[in-house]
C-alpha cells in the first residue's frame, strides 16, 4: 500500500474519530448551556441540560459513524452547533 492510499483509507477514519470524540462532547456541552434559554428556573434548566447531555453525546457518536462519509458527519455536526450556538450565546 502506498503512503497516499494509506492516507486515503486512514484519513477519513481519523476524521470520524475526532468528530465523535470532540463533536460528541462539544454538542453535549453546548446543548447543556442552550437549555438555559428555555423558560425554566435556573436550577431546573441546569439539571435538564446535564441529564440530557449523555444521550446527545451518544447520539452524536452513533451519527458520526453511521453516515456515509466523514465530510457529511462534520457538516451535520456544524449544522446542529449553528442552531444551538445562538441559544447558548443568549444566556
Amino acid at each position: 500500500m502506498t503512503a497516499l492510499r494509506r492516507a486515503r483509507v486512514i484519513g477519513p477514519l481519523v476524521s470520524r474519530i475526532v468528530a465523535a470524540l470532540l463533536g460528541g462532547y462539544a454538542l453535549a456541552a453546548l446543548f447543556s448551556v442552550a437549555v438555559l434559554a428555555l423558560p425554566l428556573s435556573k436550577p431546573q434548566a441546569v439539571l435538564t441540560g446535564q441529564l440530557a447531555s449523555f444521550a446527545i453525546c451518544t447520539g452524536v457518536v452513533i451519527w458520526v459513524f453511521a453516515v456515509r462519509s466523514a465530510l457529511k458527519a462534520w457538516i451535520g455536526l456544524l449544522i446542529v452547533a449553528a442552531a444551538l450556538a445562538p441559544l447558548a450565546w443568549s444566556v
Partner: protein
Amino acid sequence: MSGLHTWAGLLLGWVLYAMFLTGTVSFFKEELSQWMRPEQPRLTQPLDPAVVAQRVADEIGAIAPGATQWSIKLPDGRSNTVYAFWRLPGGGPGARGFGQDLFDPVTGHRVAARLTLGGDFFYRFHFQFYYMSPFWGRLLAGLAAMAMLVAIVAGVITHKKIFTDFFTFRWGKGQRSWLDAHNALSVFGLPFHVMITYTGLVTLMALYVPWGERAAIKTPAERQQLSAELNAFAQAGKPSGETVPLASIEAMVRQAQQRWGTTDAGRVNATNPGDATARIAVTRGDAGRVSMSPDYIEFDGVTGKLLAVHDRVGAAAETRGVLYALHLGRFSDIATRWLYFLVSLMGTAMVGTGLVLWIVKRRAKLPDPERPYFGFRLVERLNIASIAGLSIAMTAFLWGNRLLPVAMAERPFWEIHVFFIVWGLTLLHALLRPAKAAWREQLWTAAALLALVPVLNAVTTQRPLWRSLAEGDWEFAGIELMCWALAALHAVLAIRTARQPAGAAAGRKAERRSPIGTAAGETAP
C-alpha cells in the same frame, strides 16, 4: 457500526470490566463490611433509630464539642455500625478540620473492630479507582461509562435479530459460542445495562458537564437554590457564639418517623450544634422510595420546634433523584438486591465475553498462530489479568483482611495494597506463561482462594460458618456461601478452558462452519 461497537468496547473494556465487577459486589457492601469487621457483634434485633441517633449525637458532642456540623447515618437493618462525620472550625481556609468514625449503635461508643475500609473499598474503586486523585479517577470512570453507552447502542444496531439469536445457543463451538454467550448476556439484561450505565453517568454529571452550571449559577443565593434541589445539606450559618445545649434528637427523629409512617429516618444532620443558632435536619431513608432527591424536615436545634418540611423539588431534580437512586439500588429489599446483583454480574460477563471474543475472532485469522502480532498478545494478556486476575485480587483483599496483623499501622491501606500487589502479580504471571496455561492456572487459583475463604475465617475468627448458620447470621454466612458459589463458577470456567482444543484450530473450524458468523464482525466502520 460494528467497528464502533468493537473498539468502543475494547479500548476501555478492561476498565469497564473492573468497574462492573466491583460495582456488582457493592450492592452488598454493607454485608461485606460486616464480614470484614468480625469483632463487631452482629445485631440480633432491630434497633430504634431515634434512640441510636440520640446516643451517637451525645457521643459526637463529647468527642468533638466544637463541631460546626455533623451528620449521622442511621442504621437501616443492613449494617451493624453507624457512620458519622463532623466538621471542626479550622484556622485559615483549607485548614478546616474533618472527622469521621463508626459507632456502635448499642453502646454509642466508637467501634473497636479491626480497621478496614470494608465493602467501601470496592464501592469507591468502582467509580474513582485508587492511587490517583478522585478527580481524575472519576473522569476516567465517566469516559469508560460513556464508551459503554456508545458500545451498547452500537451493539443493538449491529445486532439486528436479537430474539432469534437469544434462543440459539451453541455450546463448544469456539467463536460461535463466545458470540452466542455475549449476545445472550447482553440481550437479557439490556434494559438493566442501559439503565445502570446512564444512571452511573448521572451520579457524577455535575463533574462531567459543569458548563450550564457555570453559565447560569453566579450568586451564592443561586448556588443555594441549586444545592437545595440536590441534597439535604444546609450550609451552616454564622454561629451566635452563645452556648445552648441541643434539644432532644430522639424526639425529633420520632416526629419524623410519625410523618413518614413505617419508613425510617435515614440521616440526622446538625448545623451549629450547641449554639443558639443550631438547626437539625432529619432526612428520609432510602427504603420505600425510589429517589435520592432531598426529603427532610428541619427543626430548631434549641427548642426542638418543627421549622420546615422540604419534600418537593423540581421535575428535573426529581428525575435526577430517581435515576441516582436506580443506580445505587438502596431502596431495594433483599430480593430486589439479589436481582440487581445477578443481572449486574451478567453485565460483567457481557463485558468479559466481549473482551475474549476479540481474541477468539482474531486468532482464527492469524497468519501464523505461533507468532501473533504485538496488539494481539497485549489484549490476550490484559484479558487474563483483568478477568481471572481481578477475581484473585478481590479475593486476596478478603484474605488480607483476615491475615494482616490487627494492630498493624495503616492497616486499611495495606489491605488495599495487597489487592493491587496481587493484581500486579497476576499480570506478571499472564505475561510470562503461555496464554492457555495462564488462564487455567489463574482460574484455578481464584477458585481455590474463594473456596478456602470460609476455612480462613473459621481459623482466624470466633465466627466459623457452621456457627453463623446455626445462629442465622445471614450476613456472615451469605458472604461465605457466595464465595463457594463463585469458587464453583471459577472451577467450571477453568475446566472448560482446559478442555478447549488448541485455540487457533478451534477458531478456524468454527469460522468455516459458520461463514456468516460476523454479527459482530470486523468490517470497516
